């Protein structure tokens, strides 16, 4: 067994297809006779549809049909919460009834021969509404009366807080953020009436969940529906679960008897495919004068839609991040007239850490203590929330290495004291964390007589490098080089795989790939020793090895052996096959499994024009074993970039009058440009967490984003004296600074 391919900076094996435009994304599959479905969406935030007049639209050129709640075939809600791998983004199927719950809700679908015809006809559909006043902003909602969706307590937090010497009590707000992957959601539905079979071309982070869920919602059997999603132009969580456009395309295809393509437009990306919900988090911290935490109280209110109870688990890290005897955390939902929120990269922990880490920075100021020293003082040696040891925690090393490399000891804590010419410098740091977990996956590996290997799983690559990791593990276990390995993902006909979410896909599939590849290799070697004319006939298979695709005895060079396909040819076999399953292990109950890291950043403020620019970024991360140095580094870098977006730019702004997101396009919803991003230095400690899987990889897709925003608000405070407790940091905030050049 060679380990030379694991951890190497290997370029993505699908990279060439992507940069050459040859990789088909959701809406790009060439389907003969495809028609176009263009949605009509509600222009009110709350109310009822009184009537839909599609008569003019239906007479327009090319129009094949208009589907709405009055004529759609029945659809159903998913058995969400009752069954595994059944979850829809929005549990209410489109066109369920005449009720409008939010602005931008689908109210009709116009299907025409061309996209342009469908669009023109869509504009001609007249919808009459009975409007009721929508509730759009959490700040305008009455205090929640329902019981909390999350509650945690240890010790006596309130009394400890009351008695403590030093305390902070502030409320932190994160706005609604919209995922905005480059590739918008899209579905092409192909309905074969004679066979009663439906094929859905999708862009999904979860082929299996998508398959299971749409089958239930369309009342179809798993065998009669086929999901194909070979490439995903990112998702950030917005593609974890099926959204209504998938069902609309299916319903439309059944309605007109032709393939129907429905593409979610950029404005509709802001209303119909989820968002990170608005959160309002009161954090109270109390400490002794020497900085030992005595109480942590974290109270969260978070919005969700009128139709679903989506929980953004901001309090996930609260019980475990620091050592503290008295902790309480509680979270409430507030129902608003908005689309259903959905996980967005680092859900829960990201807004949660913004609040907790901001509070820690404020506590450090109150204690007149260095913020890093405060973290070290309260370092959690074990998970005090679960009362479990950590499987592998190297956060202290992250802090220490980061501080040294950044030069943290040179930080003058006084506000506005550090300068670079006319610019004021601000230094901030924050902890980041994300849990490690694994679920179930089945993987099939075939070693083929054409000299290639094939590995397949109904997992998917959402742009993170999953294809490449599959190939790396097969190469590692079989000794067949990566360029001879074909990876098949994103198809519900393949053995069921996990959703690409929670940073768990890698940790989940690794053991299954590894076992299947190992089995296939062993079978091949058995064939090699059990076949007449084989040069290895009668040998002990344990003495054999495959290197660079050649079977040879371990004590001799690969040149002395034969290509593995020669063994198959001798036996007249097309292939040897193996399939293996991996599942959650007992270790997830015996250990607290988490990645950790530390961000350090420097910003420059030009006080004369209230301009903030980030000048340095350093992230030191303990993410377990890094399977691919290149894609791993990119994941952390990308997470930091997204965190900078959260800190400085991102906010979906709703018109309170009707719930319309007014900045629903790429020009007005700001994300960082290249010019906003400094050189980002990422150091990966690379300690294998073998409690999670044999390679010790934890999954690092999300952690890079956590903590970033509070590192930025801390740096901003350090430079300007302005504490931003409502993201993003805006020019309006910087204008409040009294620090001058």
């Amino acid at each position, binding site marked *: 067994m060679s380990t030379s391919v694991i951890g190497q900076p290997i370029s993505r094996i699908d990279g060439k297809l992507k940069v050459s435009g040859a990789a088909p994304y959701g809406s790009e599959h060439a389907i003969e006779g495809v028609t176009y479905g263009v949605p009509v969406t509600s222009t009110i935030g709350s109310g009822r549809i009184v009537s839909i007049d599609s008569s003019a639209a239906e007479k327009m050129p090319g129009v094949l049909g208009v589907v709405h709640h009055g004529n759609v075939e029945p659809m159903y809600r998913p058995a969400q919460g009752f069954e595994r791998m059944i979850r829809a983004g929005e549990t209410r199927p489109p066109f369920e009834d005449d009720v409008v719950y939010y602005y931008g809700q689908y109210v009709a679908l116009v299907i025409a021969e061309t996209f*342009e015809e469908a669009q023109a006809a869509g504009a001609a559909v007249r919808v009459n509404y009975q409007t009721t006043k929508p509730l759009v902003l959490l700040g305008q909602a009455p205090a929640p009366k329902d019981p909390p969706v999350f509650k945690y307590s240890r010790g006596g937090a309130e009394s400890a807080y009351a008695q403590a010497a030093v305390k902070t009590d502030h409320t932190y707000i994160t706005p609604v953020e919209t995922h905005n992957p480059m590739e918008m959601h899209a579905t092409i539905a192909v309905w074969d009436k004679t066979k009663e079979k439906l094929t859905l071309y999708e862009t999904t982070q979860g082929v299996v969940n998508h398959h299971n869920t749409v089958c239930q919602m369309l009342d179809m059997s798993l065998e009669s529906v086929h999901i194909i999603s070979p490439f995903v132009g990112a998702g950030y969580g917005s593609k974890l679960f099926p959204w209504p456009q998938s069902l609309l395309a299916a319903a439309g295809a059944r309605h007109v008897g032709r393939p129907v393509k429905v593409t979610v437009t950029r404005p509709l990306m802001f209303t119909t495919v989820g968002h990170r919900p608005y959160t309002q988090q009161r954090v109270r911290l109390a400490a002794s004068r020497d900085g030992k935490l005595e109480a942590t109280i974290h109270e969260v209110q978070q919005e969700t839609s009128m139709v679903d109870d989506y929980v953004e688990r901001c309090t996930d890290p609260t019980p475990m991040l620091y050592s503290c005897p008295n902790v309480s955390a509680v979270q409430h939902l507030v129902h608003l007239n908005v689309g259903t929120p959905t996980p967005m990269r680092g859900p829960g922990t990201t807004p949660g850490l913004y609040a907790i880490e901001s509070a820690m920075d404020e506590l450090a100021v109150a204690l007149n203590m260095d913020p890093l020293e405060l973290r070290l003082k309260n370092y959690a040696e074990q998970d005090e929330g679960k009362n479990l040891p950590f499987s592998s925690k190297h956060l202290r090393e992250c802090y220490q290495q980061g501080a040294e490399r950044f030069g943290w000891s040179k930080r003058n804590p006084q506000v506005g004291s550090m300068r670079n010419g006319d610019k004021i410098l601000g230094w901030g740091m924050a902890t980041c964390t994300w849990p490690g977990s694994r679920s179930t996956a089945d993987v099939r590996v075939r070693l083929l007589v054409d000299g290639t290997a094939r590995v397949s799983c109904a997992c998917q690559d959402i742009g993170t490098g999953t294809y490449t990791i599959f190939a790396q593990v097969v190469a590692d276990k079989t000794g067949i080089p990566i360029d001879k390995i074909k990876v098949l993902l994103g198809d519900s006909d393949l053995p069921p795989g996990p959703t690409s979410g929670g940073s768990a896909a890698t940790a989940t599939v690794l053991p299954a790939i590894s076992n299947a590849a190992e089995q296939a290799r062993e079978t091949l070697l058995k064939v090699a020793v059990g076949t007449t004319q084989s040069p290895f006939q009668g040998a002990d298979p344990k003495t054999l090895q495959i290197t660079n695709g050649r079977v040879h005895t371990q004590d001799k060079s690969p040149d002395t052996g034969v290509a593995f396909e020669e063994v198959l040819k001798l036996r007249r076999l097309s292939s040897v096959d193996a399939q293996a399953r991996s599942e959650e292990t007992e270790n997830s109950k015996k250990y607290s499994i988490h990645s950790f890291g530390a961000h350090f950043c420097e910003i420059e403020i030009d006080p004369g*024009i209230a301009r903030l620019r980030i000048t340095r970024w350093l992230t030191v991360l303990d993410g377990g074993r890094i399977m691919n140095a290149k894609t791993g580094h990119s994941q952390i870098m990308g997470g930091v970039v997204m965190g900078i977006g959260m800190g400085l*730019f991102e906010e979906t*702004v709703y*018109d309170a009058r009707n719930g319309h997101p007014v900045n629903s396009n790429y*020009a007005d919803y700001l994300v960082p440009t290249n010019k906003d991003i400094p050189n980002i230095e990422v150091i990966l400690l690379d300690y294998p967490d073998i409690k999670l899987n044999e390679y010790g990889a934890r999954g690092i897709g999300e952690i890079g984003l956590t903590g970033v925003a509070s590192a930025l608000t801390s740096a901003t405070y350090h430079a300007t004296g302005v504490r931003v407790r409502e993201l993003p940091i805006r*020019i309006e905030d910087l*204008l409040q600074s009294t620090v001058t050049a």
Partner: protein
Amino acid sequence: MQSFQYQDAKTVDDAVSANGGIAGAKFVAGGTTLIDLMKLNVETPQTLVDINRLPLTGVESTSDGGVQIGAMVRNSDLANHELIQKRYPVLSQALRSGASPQLRNMATTGGNLLQRTRCYYFRDTAYAACNKRNPGSGCAAIDGFNRIHAILGTSEHCIATHPSDMAVAMMALEATVHTQGSSGSRSIALDEFYLVPGNTPQKENVLAPGELITHVTLPALADGTRSYYLKLRDRASYEFALSSAAVVVRVSDGRIRSARVALGGVATKPWRSREAEKELEGHPVGEKTFQAAASAAVRGARPLHDNAFKVKLVQLCLVRALRVVTTEA
């Protein structure tokens, strides 16, 4: 988008006669505003006259030492033109601060002058109330989210900001717009080209229906004149100005001898501030003078719920621009 007739014009006369000033006819150049708005059903022309082949692509010195710019010169070509970079850095800087490279490669000089506002409510036909789009219907922005909206030149009927960077620089350069229409050609000082909304926000400039911009001319600048464009916004690139300032200044012996100031991102049209100029001309170079000019520039500003910060920001912007332009390199 609605269906429309398409006509291709090869000469200015062809274009003007094809348009004919009939209702529903529009010229299309780079299309970076018009096509966008057609997709949103905000613009619904019945006829598009394509002027992309018109021979209006030159940037030339004029006999009086100025520059004549063809209406079809693309923003990126203009920004990178030697004459512009050398004589009118403020214009080159303004152009390069606008949009993205892809958009600048398409957008034209004439088209940029006619760029429509980025007001959210103008761009979304789901809002019935927009006096610019639908005269007399009201203004959804005044009580809506108006962080990007104007504080100068507004009326109770419209608060939409003019989005152009180029036009702000041209305003400070005292450009002249040259047009041709069915009744002949004319020249219009840029300052007189734009209209404040008043009670007719649908009317943004003095062009008659079917009148085509053919050229823009910039006058020669006196020796020793310096110019600079500063744009402030949330992110470092690809965003409309929250405040911008174009300054064209001549200094001798520590005094400002002439000053032209225009502001962007804060007004309903590219905003020439003669009030600021008055506080600069004849005064000594220095913070006190700059501050006085900045205060004068925002006199009469009408901030709203979300854009009050612009009153301060645009002053900072102007003060900094003046400091940069008066500091010897």
